Structures are given as structure tokens and as C-alpha cells.
């Protein structure tokens, strides 16, 4: 009797085609508080899956995506200015510009593979939803990096080693990117993705692209004669090892 009543009243979430683990879906509910910039920042930190729910229901999808991009641009710009305080001069504007452009370009070139790899994993979502997921990833990573900005500023004004600061920034980026990637992973689960192996490969590709972008757009820390060095092409690992050797 009790089981029958439970089965009559239980209403599963509307878009789920499989049954992912409950704790991964926690927060996948309608967005409360409206589609405003302060509310989105708040929900991005507290209940990011509610933003994904809003994107999938196609309510204000375009507005949400634009606001997420705005959050990402502003937060990475702020972080970039802090990074630029290591060298001052042109890096005060060049570092934020390079960081914002580099990350947005990385997102654009990784978006097609994100869509296809999530499809391969069984995700049945619109392209606009997947685009929104990527924007949420970048926006959340940016917000967390802004949280680390005071720490970066402290080391930026008290360090003389560009190599050390570069290493610190890379570690912080990896930490924040992992939070963003975990959001996309949970979003995929909430939307019915059954096989996460392909998505794990995409995560690796995304991280490699962003790490290579730091070398492509060098120098971001420290000053050199040229603002960008597109002529001399290097793989990021070999560039980093050269910098460590020079430091010795």
C-alpha cells in the first residue's frame, strides 16, 4: 500500500532519460531569483546546476550565455590586471587582454569536440545548452581565480622570479579549471550522459589547449621586447623547462 502511494506521487525530473546518482544531480532545479547578473554569480557558486536547468529549458538561454561570458571576461580581466602587476608597464593591459582572448579562443576551438564527445557519451542536449555549459565552466573558473587574486597579488609584488609566479599561476588555473570541469561533468550527468570516458578525454584536451595557449601568447608574466612572439613556436613543456634552466 505504502509503495503504491509512493509510486503514484513520485514525479521524476522531466529531462532525465537515465537514473544518475542523486548526489550528482543535487541542485538541478529551476533557477530562483531571476536571470540577473548578481543572481547568476551567486548561483554559479552555490547552485550551478540550476543555471544548466534554465539553459536546457530554453528560458533566457541567450541572455544567460551572454551574462556568463560577461562574468568570464570581467573576472579574467581582473585576474589579468593582478598578474600584470608583477611587471607593470605594458603588462598591466596586455596580460588581461591575452588571458581573456586566449581563454575565449580556447573555448571556441574546444566547443565542437565538447558537443560531439558529450553526444558520444549519450547526452541528449541542444547545442546551445552545451555552449552554455562551456561558458559556465569558464565563468566559474574565472570567479574562483578572482578569489585567488589577493594571493596572486601578494606573490606578484613580493617575488622577483617570473618562473615561480608562472608555476603558481598554472597550479591555480588547474585547480580552478577542475572545479569548472566538475560542473560540466555534473551537468552531463543531470542531462542523461551515461558514459563519461569520452568527456574525460575532452577535459584533458581542454587543459592541454589552455596550457599551450599560455606559451603561444607569451610573455604574460615578465617583460620582453615583443608583446607577443608568434615567430618562435614552442611546446609548453619545452618552454617551461627552458625557463627553469635559465632560472638556475
Amino acid at each position: 500500500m505504502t509503495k503504491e502511494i509512493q509510486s503514484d506521487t513520485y514525479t521524476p525530473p522531466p529531462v532525465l532519460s537515465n537514473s544518475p546518482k542523486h548526489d550528482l544531480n543535487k541542485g538541478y532545479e529551476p533557477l530562483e531569483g531571476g536571470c540577473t547578473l548578481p543572481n547568476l554569480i551567486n548561483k554559479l557558486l552555490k547552485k550551478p546546476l540550476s543555471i544548466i536547468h534554465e539553459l536546457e529549458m530554453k528560458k533566457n538561454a541567450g541572455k544567460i550565455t551572454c551574462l556568463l561570458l560577461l562574468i568570464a571576461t570581467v573576472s579574467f580581466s581582473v585576474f589579468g590586471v593582478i598578474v600584470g602587476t608583477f611587471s607593470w608597464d605594458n603588462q598591466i593591459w596586455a596580460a588581461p587582454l591575452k588571458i581573456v582572448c586566449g581563454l575565449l579562443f580556447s573555448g571556441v576551438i574546444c566547443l565542437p569536440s565538447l558537443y560531439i564527445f558529450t553526444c558520444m557519451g549519450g547526452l541528449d542536449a541542444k547545442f546551445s545548452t552545451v555552449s552554455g555549459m562551456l561558458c559556465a565552466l569558464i565563468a566559474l573558473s574565472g570567479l574562483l581565480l578572482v578569489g585567488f587574486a589577493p594571493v596572486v597579488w601578494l606573490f606578484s609584488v613580493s617575488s622577483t622570479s617570473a618562473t615561480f609566479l608562472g608555476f603558481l599561476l598554472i597550479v591555480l588555473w588547474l585547480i580552478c579549471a577542475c572545479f569548472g570541469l566538475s560542473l560540466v561533468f555534473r551537468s552531463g550527468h543531470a542531462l542523461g550522459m551515461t558514459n563519461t570516458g569520452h568527456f574525460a578525454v575532452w577535459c584533458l584536451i581542454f587543459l592541454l589547449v589552455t596550457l599551450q595557449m599560455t606559451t603561444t601568447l607569451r610573455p604574460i608574466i615578465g617583460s620582453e621586447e615583443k608583446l607577443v612572439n608568434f615567430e618562435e613556436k614552442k611546446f609548453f613543456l619545452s618552454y617551461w623547462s627552458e625557463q627553469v634552466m635559465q632560472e638556475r
Partner: protein
Amino acid sequence: MNPFANPLKNAAALCRGEKQLLTAWIEGSHRGSIPFCIALITLGCCSYGFTIGLRHGSEMAFYVALKLPFIIFLTLFLNGMLNAMLSLTLGSGIGFRKSLQFLLTGFAIMSIILGALSPISFFATLNMPEPGALGDATWHSANLLLHTSLIAYAGILAHSRLLHYVRDFADSPSAGTHTFLAWLIGNLFVGAQISWILRPYFVSPGLEVEFLRVDPFDGNFYEAVFRAIRNVTNF
């Protein structure tokens, strides 16, 4: 319903492995499924092939963009009758049109994956030094390894999906598995030789950019592999 009416949705459904879509294609109720697969293979392989050859200039980029889908179509053309006969002989009940549809679907999935990876491949190529720069041999090997890995990854994903389809549609799962293995061995055997004839795709250091090597029919892939093994083992 014509798959060209909603190409992105149908391509995504193909990647997800939606059985309803493939059943309609195989049973022939969806017109235009074969041209749709051909279009996907052309677009995906052309865009990825372009990024392979781009390191040696736009001329090589266009050459490889032309050759990559051509390898697939030529392999299926030469092996078409053999694939159908093997599948019937092995008891899968899959005839000529259905075997062609299956194989085109498998290659279409591979091409979608490669096409989606082509922006990343393009970015990687832009970050490689020009040919002739210091360390060119190392970069050439890295380029070779990168693209071989990506193509192998896409191929394995697509063919594991194809195996799943064939086992579902065949008269029995074991007949489906045997048919898939027969197609795989036959296509790999012929495809390797077609790839050999249509080389180069990567211009080795010291060689010129060409559409085809001089005397492309002189020697074959397996002779080259045998010579390489002999050179390595000093046999």
C-alpha cells in the same frame, strides 16, 4: 524524412547511437541517408586533412584534404562486393546496400569526431615551427604521432559503435561479430595499401611537397613494413 533537413541533429543522434535513426536508415525508410553519410565523411575528413597538411603550406593542406576522404571512398568501392559477400556468407543476413550503409555510418561517425577535433588540430599545427627550423625531425615525429593518435582514437570509437550496431542488426550477435571482423580485416588490408599509394600526408624532412610520390605504384605498404622490420632487426 530527409536527414539533410536537420543535419546537426542527425549527426548528434548518430554519435549518441540512437537505434531508431539507424533502424530507419538500414531499413531504407529514410531517404538520403547514404548521401548524408557521404557528405559527413567528406566534410569531416576534408577539414581534418586540411589541418594535417597545413604545416607544409596551403598547397599540402589542400592535397591532404582531398586525399583523406578519397581513401575511405576508394576502399569501400574496391571492397564493396567483398564486404557484402562476406556478410552473407557469415550468416549475418546483411546484403550489399545494408553493408554499405553500415560501413558508411561507421566512417561518418569517425569523420564527425575528426571534424570536431579539427579546430584543435589546427591550433596544434599553428604552434609547430616551420619545416626546416631547428629540431624539424623531432617536430615531424611529434606531428606524425599526434595525428596518428587522433585518427586511431576516432577510428576505434567509431568502429566500436559500428560493432554494437552490426551485432544488433545481424541475424545473430556472433554472426554480427564475425561479419564486423571480416569487414575490419578486409578494409584495413586494402585501406593500408590505398593509403600507401596516395602518400605523402606528412612531408618528411628533406622531401618536397608533392600530390603523389614519383612512381606511387612502385612497391606496396606490406613490402615497406617488411623492409623496415628487416632494417630494425638486421635480419
